[in-house]
């Protein structure tokens, strides 16, 4: 289909089905039950994050997975995309399409500049350069360019860039008829509008913003499969494998890597633009180096260099981040109520460090376990399980290795 081989087409449809049916899949427990409270993830805000971070990591994987260049500053492009989109909402109008386009263009230009500078070095030096430049962007956004008192207030500093009632919005209204801020929309379809479906005890939410993001994610995923399978993708893998041989084979490696860098920067900008489209607010913390680190973690969790790994990694990370931070001491007490009081308190006291605000700790341990036992990420886990059960049918995981 559309220039994909059979395996990739199957993989694409599996991902498409999963993302379009996500409101069902992510809501396995009936509404109102305590399990739903904890484990259901089918609400718009979180589902949007799944697919948007999916886009971000798919793009990151084109750079890191194919060329092996580890960028530690990709959050900068996410932030740049977010700010660009919000500016579009402030100045032009609330349609998300121009906002997303501007986000992609601006982050692409930044990626070209940053890539041109940092690709003078490779390996760890490249990583450090990207980290430093991204952190520079963060500080520019946080303070230098964000001073509300100056006339160059591009980012509104600590507060974050947000809409206000006196924005220009040339092709839209500054204020709605009832005096509120207008909402982001796709040619009239508000991103926050949802259709709720009540089936038995279950409540499924179909959110316009989610489906908009999911479709863009699927397009991004398709583009990434095409790049992986193209001669260009092969060249990028050759860069990772042996740059010396490439140079002596008559190929200039620099523009190849730069092109991959710019493509992944544009993906990150797209993700940033989408984040702002869902909630028109952009803060500098999106560009912080911990955010860049999270992108790397998501990519490695899922499986670097595989097609579907980034999507799985992003989903896994966002899901557990959300679940773990929701579990607090009273939930733990509920769960452990069957134990004798003394032991219960002891256990809650111990587990306290791993949940709620301590979610980083659990996620960190999971990350370590994956790295140690599944160096190929969760995709490798899936492959091993599939192999163990000797299923002939190629599950979505087995078809993800980029090699033909």
């Amino acid at each position, binding site marked *: 289909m559309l220039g994909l081989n059979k395996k990739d087409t199957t993989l694409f449809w599996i991902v498409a089905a999963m993302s379009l049916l996500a409101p069902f899949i992510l809501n396995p427990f009936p509404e109102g039950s305590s399990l739903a409270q904890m484990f259901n993830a089918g609400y718009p805000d979180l589902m949007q994050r799944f697919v948007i971070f999916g886009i971000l990591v798919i793009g990151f994987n084109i750079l890191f997975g194919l060329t092996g260049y580890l960028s530690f500053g990709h959050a900068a492009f996410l932030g740049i995309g977010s700010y660009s989109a919000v500016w579009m909402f402030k100045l032009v109008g609330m349609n998300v399409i121009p906002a997303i386009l501007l986000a992609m263009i601006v982050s692409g230009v930044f990626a070209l500049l940053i890539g041109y500078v940092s690709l003078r070095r490779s390996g760890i030096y490249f990583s450090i350069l990207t980290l430093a430049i991204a952190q520079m962007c963060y500080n520019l956004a946080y303070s230098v360019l964000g001073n509300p008192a100056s006339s160059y207030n591009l980012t509104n500093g600590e507060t974050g860039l947000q809409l206000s009632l006196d924005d220009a919005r040339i092709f839209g209204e500054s204020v709605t008829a009832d005096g509120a801020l207008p909402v982001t929309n796709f040619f009239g379809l508000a991103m926050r509008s949802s259709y709720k479906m009540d089936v038995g005890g279950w409540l499924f939410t179909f959110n316009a913003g989610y489906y908009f993001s999911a479709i863009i994610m699927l397009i991004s995923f398709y583009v990434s499969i095409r790049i992986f399978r193209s*001669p260009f993708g092969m060249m990028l893998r050759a860069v990772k494998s042996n740059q010396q041989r490439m140079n002596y084979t*008559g190929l200039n490696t620099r523009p190849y890597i730069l092109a991959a860098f710019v493509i992944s920067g544009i993906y990150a900008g797209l993700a940033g633009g989408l984040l702002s489209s869902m909630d028109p607010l952009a803060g500098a913390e999106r560009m912080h180096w911990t955010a860049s680190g999270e992108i790397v973690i998501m990519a490695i969790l899922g499986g670097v260099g595989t097609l579907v790994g980034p999507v799985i990694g992003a989903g896994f990370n966002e899901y557990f981040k959300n679940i773990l931070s929701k579990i607090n001491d009273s939930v733990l007490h509920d769960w452990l109520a069957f134990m004798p009081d003394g032991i219960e308190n002891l256990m809650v006291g111990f587990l306290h460090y791993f949940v709620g605000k301590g979610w980083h700790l659990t996620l960190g341990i999971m990350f370590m376990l994956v790295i140690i036992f599944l160096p190929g990420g969760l995709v490798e886990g899936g492959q091993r399980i599939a192999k163990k059960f000797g299923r002939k049918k190629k599950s979505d995981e087995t078809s993800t290795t980029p090699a033909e």
Partner: protein
Amino acid sequence: MGILEVKNVGKRFGGLQALSNVELSVKENTCHAIIGPNGAGKSTLLNCFVGKLMPDTGSVMFDGQSVLGRTPYEINQMGISRVFQTPEIFGDLNVLENMMIPIFAKRDGAFRMHAFENMLDERDVVEKAEHMLEEMGMADARNDHAASMSRGNKRRLEIAMCLSQDPRLLLLDEPTAGMARADTNNTIDLLKQIKEERDITIAIIEHDMHVVFSLADRITVLAQGTPLVEDDPENIKGHPKVREAYLGETQAV
């Protein structure tokens, strides 16, 4: 006038004069060997031909054009391919992909953004790569992981990759270094066959006299960074200066 003309090349590394006054002329469609004891400057000289090193003095002309100051990929695009001492291939890719990359490089130049083209639409490249593998007797290995091959096969693949670009000059840097006897003989046979079947000029750097005397039409002996003598193989064998400087102090032929 040879296809490769080296005039008065000198190169100094700190206190060491690695090359001085090197004069060399490689005639078209011959196999020219450069031999010499360890540290004679053979590899340094080769690196001056491919853009890895910039000599301090002198000129290196390939087919009337200077190669000095050009990058390795530009020099390759001029028609010079290089085989390394340790086979340099794309270990993470399979054998067919390894074959396709130089063909793409030859067809599309140093950079082309073919990100949306499908590999299936590149029939001509795939066919040429498969044909080349067949010619080299590696057709069965087409889907093998390149890193998993034996050293002899890696060498064979590397040579095949270079030949697929139809280079005018093939540079070989100790192509049989570290190889088992059988692999060495295979490589010699392969190179002999290439020499006979193709219009190609070969410049080879080699330690192994067996290899040199089976292949070379012309030999330059390098000692301490200067060419000692340049002559036909028969004359080199018995040349007293060569024996003294080279053959005498290491093991004989």
